[in-house]
């Protein structure tokens, strides 16, 4: 039945398997792709043998190599609630639109008083945003003056994230649906070149809040022999 190419025409080639494969791969990559949000600062974490994947539900504190601190919550409704509470506490007014927009942003590193301007700024402009009043960028965490905003963010954000988790859990239990979410965890992401004293300040803030367990984000180290017969 095969048709013989004749008369110098293009040889017929059955492309169906190739196209099938191409589309299969396209579908696979499309479904597995998760677009990473642009982080406000490039942080290159050190490598380690830690193999624990970062939990999806996390509260992230990023520290860049100048010691600036950035804060983010992965759960967007917890993030919105935390901002509302912070706004009341520090008496900084936010519009509802700003709160909604804020929930979609990645980590931020500004004083709460500069946050409305930060939210309204265009994405490219955000990086170069000069904070008002000569303030430094980075979430303030003065351990001496009572302006430890990071502490409040962690306390309020953590509480809201746990509340969201519990709500989702009880809802799942009521409907009998599968419940797969994880408990929120606290993660610290830090540049390899950051001086440890900056990290210490952040850890001090955590331990002051009686939070003693963190995930330190690292990149995976290749190779190396690991003596670990217990494989815990």
């Amino acid at each position, binding site marked *: 039945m095969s048709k013989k190419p004749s008369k110098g*025409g*293009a*040889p*017929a*080639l059955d*492309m169906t398997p*190739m*196209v099938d494969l*191409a*589309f299969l*791969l*396209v579908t696979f*990559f*499309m479904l*597995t*792709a998760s677009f*990473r949000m642009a982080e406000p600062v490039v942080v290159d*974490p*050190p490598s*380690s*043998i*830690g*193999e*624990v*994947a*970062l939990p999806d539900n996390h509260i992230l504190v990023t*520290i860049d190599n100048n010691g600036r601190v950035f804060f983010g919550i992965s759960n967007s409704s917890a993030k919105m609630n935390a901002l509302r509470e912070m706004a009341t506490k520090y008496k900084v007014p936010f519009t509802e639109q700003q709160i909604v927009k804020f929930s979609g942003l990645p980590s931020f590193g500004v004083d709460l008083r500069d946050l409305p301007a930060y939210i309204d700024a265009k994405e490219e402009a955000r990086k170069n945003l000069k904070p008002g009043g000569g303030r430094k960028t980075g979430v303030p965490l003065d351990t001496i003056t009572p302006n430890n905003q990071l502490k409040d963010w962690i306390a309020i954000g953590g509480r809201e994230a746990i509340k969201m988790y519990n709500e989702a859990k009880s809802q799942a239990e009521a409907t009998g649906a599968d419940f797969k979410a994880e408990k929120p965890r606290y*993660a610290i*992401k*830090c*540049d*390899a*070149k*950051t*001086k*440890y*004293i900056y*990290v*210490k300040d952040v*850890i001090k803030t*955590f*331990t002051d809040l*009686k939070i*003693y*367990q*963190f*995930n*330190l*984000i*690292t*990149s*995976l*180290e290749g190779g*190396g022999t*690991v*003596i*670990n*017969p*217990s494989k*815990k």
Partner: protein
Amino acid sequence: MAEIQEGGGGGHKGGKKRAKKQSTRIDMTPMVDLAFLLLTFFVLTATFSKPKSMELTFPAPPPPDQKPDEIKKGITFLLSKDNRIFYYEGQFRAAPDEKGPATELKELSFDQGSLHKYLLDKSKDMHERIKALDAKHQAGQLADTTFKRMVREVKADKESYTYLIKTDDEATYKNVIDVIDELNVNVVGKYVMVDILKPEYDLVKAKVGTN
């Protein structure tokens, strides 16, 4: 290449039939082009690795009325600038007393693996005990839970070393992670991050300053 079939060839006479015989083949080239374009895009942008992390637990401060446990066998690592790492064993002594001479810092390095060797040497005993347990476990003589408990006991042994990690104001985060990593690789049971003391700090500064 996919092609559009050209006419039925010269075999047929009469124009009526040609309409029915018209090919149903479509030129797939643009679709395939697009498919491969997308494929290339996703392959190139894909990042498979989710960020990995290291779980770390800090000790809760003991209640003020309780005296902290005394560390019997301690090794203190002091991290400083330029990836330098010093250590001393036992209690810190600013001046020689009846228990021993004044503390002197010895240096280790990250690159030449001397830290790794040092730790390996220090925890040899423990590794042998764990290995013996592991062999028993593999042979089926120990239940999983018993094995885990016994490994934990070996690690928490009072006689094994406790490692203290201290940093001065110049040490980088990477160094701290490297030390913890090395300790994890060597399955060290007990380590803790502590604030540096003034005499230790001065000693480190003297070392870093002189050579």
